[in-house]
Structures are given as C-alpha cells and as structure tokens.
C-alpha cells in the first residue's frame, strides 16, 4: 500500500508566477510539456546550444538589433529622449524570430520533424515558416480566417516559405481560435510534432521558455542605453499582445527598481466600450489556453471576444508573468485606442521615416503620453517590435489612401 500512499499526494504546482501560470491542459499533453521543459532546461545550460543560437542570431537574425534615437518624433513626446530598440530590423521583420529560432533548435534536439504554430498578425507564422524552411521541418500554421483577410500579405509569405496555412473558422476567427486549433492538432500529433507557441502564454514551460528566448532584447538594450546615455532609462515601454516582446525587453530591467516598466494594451474603440483587447486593464483573473492569468471573460467564465485594429494584439489573454508583475506593482499596464495607435503610426512614419507595425505603434502612442508626463529630462526606451510592411493595406484603408 505504500505506493498508493505516495501517489495520493498531490504534486506541487509548477511554472507559477505567484498565483498565475501553471498548467491547465489535457493529460495527453503532459508528456510533451515535460519533454519540452527538460529540453529547455538542458539547452539553457548547454554551451553548444547557446553558441549555435548566438551564431544564428549574428548571421541570420541580424543581432544585435540597433538603437535609433527618434529626435523629430521626440517633439511629439514632450521632448523626452526617445530610444527605439529596432526589433523591426530583424530578419522577417519582428522580434518573433528570436523565439522561433530557439524553439526550432529545441525541436531538432527533441528529434521532432513537424512544427505547428498559431498566428495573429502573421509575424509569428512567418517566423515559424522561416525557421521550418531553414531547418527542413514540415510546418503548419493556424490562422483565424478574419486575420488571413487582414494580413493577406503574410499569408502569401508563409506559403512562399513552404508552410501550409490553415484558416480557422471557429469562434471569433482570430488568434484565440487559431490557438485552440493548434492545441487540437498538438493533442492529436504530439509524438511527431512540436507546437511553436508564439508568445509568453500557454502552459508551463512556454511562458518561461519564450521569455528566455526574448530576454536578449533587454540584455542588449540595457547595455546599449548605458553606453549611449550613460545611465539607465527612466521607463521601458512595449506593446502587449500575449506579452513576448514586452517581457523580452522588460526582463533585464526588473531588478532596476528605478526603471519604470510600462506595457500598452490594445484599447480598441476604448476600454469603456467593451470593444478592446486590454486584458489586464479590462479583464479579471482566469484560465485560458493552459495558463492562469488575466482573461477577458463573462460571468460564466466564457472568453469574451477581443477587438483591436492590430491583429497581433487582438487576444483576450496575456502572459502570466505580466499578470504577476502587474499585481506586485513592478510593471504598469495602460490601454491605447486604435485611434491613438494610428496617430503614432502616422507620426513615426512622417517624422523618422520608419513605418512601425501597428502593434508597436501602441507603444509609440504610449511614449507620446509618458514623454509628456515625464518631460524633456526623461529617457524612454521603446521596443519597436516590428515593421509595418504587413500593415500597409490596413493603414491605407484607415487613412483613406487609395490602393
């Protein structure tokens, strides 16, 4: 009977950030998550793995990404010094490649031959398709039907790269439903397949692992700002979809208690209208896609549809580490409306000659507000998470530019 006495004890929760995180998944996935966790842990301390990833970043991604000081844009941000961390210059056009190359190397390490991914804006899907091409892996990308329409250019890119793109017609036909469909695929094909989740959400180890692959953004940026300015920035700003680019640039600064960390969620038509994707600002704690965090939900715990002009931020959940950083007061989260984001999109394009992703434009709109609050002495570091090529059609439509 000793063995039943042992097994009847509940094992301790894992992958928690305070009350958030953990694993809420079908038992069928536990083996794969444990395998991934072990691969991630061993890779993090394996000099060969680290050297291979660094080499890829230096010769393929284009790291380190540079810092650009936005002098003319600064006039619209209270005169504060505006330092842009140029993740938009990475190969494939956003920060997403950092995570994808890391996970593709892990896929190889686990001996799997097929990868699946979800995508909203298509940036993560493009990055996953790119890595799959580079490593010779079969790649299937799930994308909400609504998003395939909003981001048709990226759909074509993924196909050119050799990936299969499956439009998802369930539910709200956006990122949330693409994740559901990817999870169903994974439950069915878990032996052969690795799920390259694109943000710091999902069951453990994803929030930790994806953060580890993106924290290079903050490591580089902290050193670059010290070199350029001679001191730490007053605030670090990033947009929040699932939260990967934000945690990537925040993480290195968490111990620097004088540096404010500010995340900008998609406020859509305004949080008060209910049509938004501002999960921390307008949601409440709950479980979605395998993790406990803030969720946009109704009184029955049903996920509520999110709304944003930005496909990459149009998600009713957020990574659990952000929920924790919010609750302990280490990071602040604010909402930026579609209108504010598009103003910033237009301004950066016209003042700096840089067309940002609409996702990143939320952080730029945030910089315009925070810059005015802190004034010209302030130094703001902003994660320019992606470029706006994919958004040209949406922007043309928004600004009434004939195509």
């Amino acid at each position, binding site marked *: 009977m000793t063995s039943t006495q042992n097994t009847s004890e509940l*094992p301790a929760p894992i992958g928690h950030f305070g009350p958030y995180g953990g694993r809420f998944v079908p038992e069928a996935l536990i083996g794969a998550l444990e395998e991934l966790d072990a691969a991630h842990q061993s890779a993090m301390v394996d000099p060969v793995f680290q050297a291979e990833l660094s080499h890829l970043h230096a010769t393929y991604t284009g790291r380190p990404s540079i810092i650009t000081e936005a002098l003319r844009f600064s006039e619209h941000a209270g005169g504060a010094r505006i330092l842009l961390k140029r993740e938009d210059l990475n190969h494939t056009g956003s920060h997403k490649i950092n995570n994808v190359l890391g996970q593709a190397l892990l896929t190889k390490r686990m001996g799997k031959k097929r990868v699946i991914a979800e995508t909203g804006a298509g940036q993560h899907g493009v990055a996953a398709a790119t890595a799959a091409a580079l490593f010779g892996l079969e790649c299937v990308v799930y994308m909400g039907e609504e998003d395939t329409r909003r981001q048709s250019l990226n759909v074509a890119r993924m196909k050119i790269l050799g990936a299969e793109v499956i439009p998802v017609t369930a539910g709200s036909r956006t990122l949330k439903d693409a994740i559901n469909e990817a999870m169903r695929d994974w439950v069915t094909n878990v032996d052969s397949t690795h799920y390259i989740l694109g943000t710091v959400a999902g069951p453990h180890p994803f929030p930790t692992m994806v953060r580890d692959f993106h924290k290079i953004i903050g490591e580089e940026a902290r050193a670059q700002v010290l070199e350029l300015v001679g001191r730490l920035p007053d605030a670090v700003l990033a947009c929040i979809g699932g939260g990967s680019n934000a945690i990537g640039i925040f993480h290195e600064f968490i111990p620097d208690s004088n540096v404010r960390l500010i995340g900008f969620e998609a406020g859509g038509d305004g949080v008060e209208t209910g049509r938004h994707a501002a999960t921390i600002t307008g949601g409440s704690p709950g479980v979605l896609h395998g993790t406990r965090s803030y969720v946009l939900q109704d009184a*029955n715990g049903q996920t509520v549809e999110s709304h944003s002009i930005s496909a990459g931020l149009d998600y009713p959940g957020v990574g659990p580490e952000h929920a924790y950083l919010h609750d302990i007061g280490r990071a602040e989260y604010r909402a930026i409306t579609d209108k504010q984001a598009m103003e910033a999109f237009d301004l950066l394009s016209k003042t700096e000659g840089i067309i940002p992703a609409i996702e990143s434009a939320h952080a730029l709109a945030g910089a315009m507000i925070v810059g005015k609050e802190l004034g010209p002495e302030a130094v703001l570091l902003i994660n320019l998470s992606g470029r706006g090529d994919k958004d040209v059609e949406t922007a043309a439509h928004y600004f009434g530019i004939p195509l």
Partner: protein
Amino acid sequence: MSTSLEEVFVKTRLENRAALIAYIPAGFPSVEGCKRVIEVLAQSGVDALEIGFPYSDPVMDGPTIQEAAGIALQAGTGAAEVFETVKYAHDAGLATVVMTYWNPIEKFGVEAFAREMANNGGSGVVTPDLTIEESAQWKAATKTFGVNTIYVVAPSTKGERLAQVTAQCSGFVYAASLMGVTGARSTISSGAHDLVTRIRATTSMPIAVGLGVSTREQARDVASFADGVIVGSAFIKIILEAKDEDSALGEVKHLAQELAVGVREGR
C-alpha cells in the same frame, strides 16, 4: 455515503457488464430540448449521464461537440442552466456528472461549484484540463461536499504519472481511447485496451472509455475490457442532422437501445 455514480458501477459489476454513459451539452439543442433528450436516454438503457458545460474554447473537442456547444452558448447557457439540467437528469433516475473545462468552475467559485453539484443531485465532475498539480482547492471542496473527481488519462499517460492521476480519481477513471479530440471514429484504437490494462495496474477504480465510440459493435468491444462506455458525439450528430425534434428523439432512442445491448454483449 456513496454517490449514485458509484452505485451504478456496483450494480453493473454485479450484472457483469459495462455501464453505458451518454454525453450531451447542457442547453443543446435548447435547455428544454436537452431535457427531452435526457428523458429518452433515461428510458433507453443509459446508466449515467455526462452533462457538458458549454465553453467558448473547448480544446479537447472535435467539430461535432464544438458545434453543439456553440448552439448552447448562443442561447445563453451558463452555470444556472447546467445545474438545472443536472437536477433534471438526477430526478429522471440517471447518475449524473458534469464535464467542464476548468475556467467556468474557477469563475463560479470552486467551493460553490462543488456545493451546487451536490445540492442538485450531481455525483461528480469530469475536468479534462485540470491537472493534478492545480487540484488542491478542488480536491478539498469536492471532499467537503461528497462529489466525485474524474480525471481524464490518455494513451500518452505513462508510469508514475498514470498512478498519480488515477489516485486522484473517484467514481471512475476516464480513459481517452486515443490521442486526439472528441468525435465519432470508424474504429476504436487498440491503444484503448492497452491503456485500460495499464490503468488497472494502478487502481481498482472503475474505468470508462470515451472518445470515438458510436456503434453497438464498438460498445461491445470496449465493454469486453472496460467498466463503462462513454458515447457523446454520436448522439449529438443525430440531433444536429435530424430534420425535426421528433425524429431526433426517435433516433437517439434507437441508438441508446443499441448501445445498451452492446454494453451487455461484451463479456
């Protein structure tokens, strides 16, 4: 005190057969229509009922149950309707469990959910995405109110982990017959038998097999090695495809009777 569900398995063991467990989401095809289906199931040889709590993001469910849950959600089905349906099924003489993803329980309140289950005559709850690591509060609440906790194990659940999960089950162990989502399949994977054999090595708890069973022959095969046979998508498909409610109820009755024969032919 034992739950009605536990009593069902005592009875079916005495009769040397497997129990027939039917699944339907609350509020499908409507709250009242669901009750009429339950009435028919109760009169057609079904031993226990699993009532689904329709959820917006059902990652363990295939297209059939997704569609049914979508219809139920459109009509505004929530916790109140789920408990109302539990009470109805219990009063109709069926041992009744709820199958729900975790977030609706967390939102309702963990203690309160267990309490309302007990108050409405429910025997237990199947929680397909609640891992044992996250179960401390749930185990405490269900213990207080005498509610069975049913976890789902899969063919990929192995070794020590399998024993750890089955140790947390009461009522029965839910064995998923294959790696995948719910939905009728033309064949039941051989993995099901293997999984049941491996579960038996860890527990004396009854084992019910779900995922894919839709015919009398499949029910018979599964009944030869399992203590319970769970059928969901096959009933739902009938209801989705029927031209009107009367013909749906007639076909549900026919399938339930066939399956009830199947679970008695297996040994």
